[in-house]
């Protein structure tokens, strides 16, 4: 037995993950793809084939377009937000200030909570806390709940996701900064480099691997966003904060249009597959 594992070790090490992915991920996906060509309601097993109908309808579905738009905005905001804010705060936490350890632990805290809990809490904050502040300080636009307007709700969704989202990147960037050898930092200080130069010429190169890691995490977070949005806005008002995941869920479970929901899912999957492949090719080119 041992001999076989060693001879074909490449495959032996891979077999469990491959089997699991095949059975519990790809198989359901293929089932879903199959159903996307039907009008299955998801309730009983009575359905008819409708060929490409679902996909055709999809092209002119305004909700689908809206969902893609929102998911895109969300994803880009998360990527930019997590990287920029993450690096900013990581630099602060890396400098010589008192209470460093405390702050570091404190800033990681949001990552530890469940998205659902956080969203429920922020729902109250946006509906009551902020308007109360707005009234006290007599700021006009703050007095209405953010969640009642489409742009406000989008902002609120991004805020809540970032609130939790930057925690992990901060730690990752912090680690990256701390891996810079002391001598280089000292050398640059002796050479009289100012803060900006230090950042761009020294810190940034060391941070590139971290940035790529955070980029992937944020991309994943944006594209698969569900829990927080579900709890915070439920997709509203008027579907302005419906992510693709939520759209699929709504069509499948609330509107009983499972075949159609799967068409959306397959389209999403194809887009992701294409983007991933491109990304892998690109990153291979930039490999150190």
């Amino acid at each position: 037995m041992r001999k076989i594992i060693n001879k074909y070790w490449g495959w032996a090490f891979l077999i469990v993950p491959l089997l699991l992915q095949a059975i519990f991920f790809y198989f359901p996906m293929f089932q879903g793809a199959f159903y996307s060509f039907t009008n299955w309601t998801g309730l009983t097993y009575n359905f008819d084939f409708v060929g490409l109908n679902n996909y055709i309808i999809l092209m002119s579905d305004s909700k689908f377009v809206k969902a893609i738009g929102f998911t895109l905005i969300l994803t880009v905001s998360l990527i930019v937000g997590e990287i920029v804010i993450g690096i900013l705060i990581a630099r602060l936490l890396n400098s010589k200030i008192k209470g460093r350890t405390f702050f570091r632990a404190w800033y990681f805290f949001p990552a530890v909570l469940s998205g659902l809990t956080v969203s429920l809490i922020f729902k109250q904050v946006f509906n009551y806390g902020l308007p109360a502040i707005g009234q006290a300080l007599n700021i006009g636009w703050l007095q209405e709940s953010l969640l009642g307007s489409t742009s406000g709700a989008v902002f609120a969704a991004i805020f809540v996701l970032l609130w939790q989202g930057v925690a992990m990147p901060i730690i990752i960037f912090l680690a990256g900064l701390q891996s810079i050898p002391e001598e280089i930092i000292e050398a640059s200080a002796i050479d009289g480099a100012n803060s900006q130069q230090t950042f761009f010429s020294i810190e940034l190169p060391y941070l590139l691997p971290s940035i790529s890691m955070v980029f992937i995490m944020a991309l994943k977070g944006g594209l698969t966003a569900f829990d927080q949005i579900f709890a915070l806005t439920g997709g509203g008002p008027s579907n302005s904060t419906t992510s693709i995941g939520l759209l699929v869920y709504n069509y499948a479970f609330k509107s009983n249009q499972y075949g159609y929901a799967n068409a959306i899912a397959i389209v999403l999957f194809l887009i992701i597959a294409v983007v991933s492949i491109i990304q892998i090719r690109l990153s291979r080119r930039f490999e150190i």
Partner: protein
Amino acid sequence: MERFKKLRYLGIASASVLALAACGNTEETSTNGKTVIEFFNQKKEMEGTLEEIIQDFEKSHPDIDVQMTSVPDAGTVLKTRMLSGDVPDVINLYPQNIDFQEWANAGFFYDMTGQDYLDNLKNQYADKYAINGKVYNVPLTANVSGIYYNKTKFEALGLKAPETWDEFVQLVDDIKVAGETPFAIAGTEGWTLNGYHQLSLITTTGSADAANEYLRYSQPSSISADDDILKADAAKLDLLADEGNQQANWKGASYNDAIVAFTSEDALMTTNGSWALAAMRQQEPTFEISTFAFPDEEHGQSATVGAGDLALSIAAETENLEAAETFVAYMTTPEPMQKYYDVDGSPVAVIGVEEDSDSPLKALNELAFTDKHYVWMAQHWTSEDDFFTATANYLMTQDLEALADELNAFFNPMKADLD
């Protein structure tokens, strides 16, 4: 070496998985020689009372053990269970919904037509939900929808519940003149406005069927902002939407927020269904809650809308049909339903239950099970969500064109089978 040990453990683990799974599936039949039936409940708020009722039942039927399943997001869970063939013996589900209708059509439920326990219901209420002439569900209670109001404050201000539409409009003005806010509205949860909007359509067109003729059974894209019906409907919605008629921050308010706004007297009325009463009582308001039904143009034509609330079906393939039917038959007697009513308050279809003459829901309960108690229009729809959204959107924008567009977008897919 470690890897092998772990592989072995995994092997044992997988074996135990299968063993556990096998054990799990035989759980359903006799423990201690009793017949075990599963009762799938969707009304989480009534969990406690239902447990009590089950205890009583088990006392008088010692050979039957009822296991109640009460999970969050019950609707979703039920759908996946039905699909995988894991149908509970007795199920509480909403008979006007499309999922019930589809499942009944596919033969998932036991045919109860002609059973004598159906006669225990007022006005043969079960017939309202028959599929192809067959009864698959026993609706024990129904929900009703109307307008809650602060009776104490009304009396203090010399106001009374309106009996015609014009009186309703006048009432709203009077409230504003007195310096109070008319309505507590949950802007982010359109489903709370569903009752009001459907009643508006029902009273405008004359009945739920007439309303559906206009919306659901008309030609695709035929709903227009120029239609008299839609204009009249919008005029009634305007009563909720007009400037100054709602509590502060209503656009961001949730269902809970609207309830709190009502019970803390920030607003004197709120439109909702009988299910909201329990939540309101939980807030321990200092005033007397009462309700009035949605008024029509003329006197005595007020209407309400609702459908089966605690409504039971039996699985067609259940292994314990007799036990299941005994339990369902028991539920159609006054004893357990009295207990239920005392906590829940919504109208009970079971004959013999004494309803509280001082109930806040009195005005609505009086209409229950009569022909002024219309069934939710969604009985003929394939979904409801976008209707809620369209209603909420209209309240925020008062844009009639947009309302027509959204209604068309909502109903068009359903009209694919027409002509």
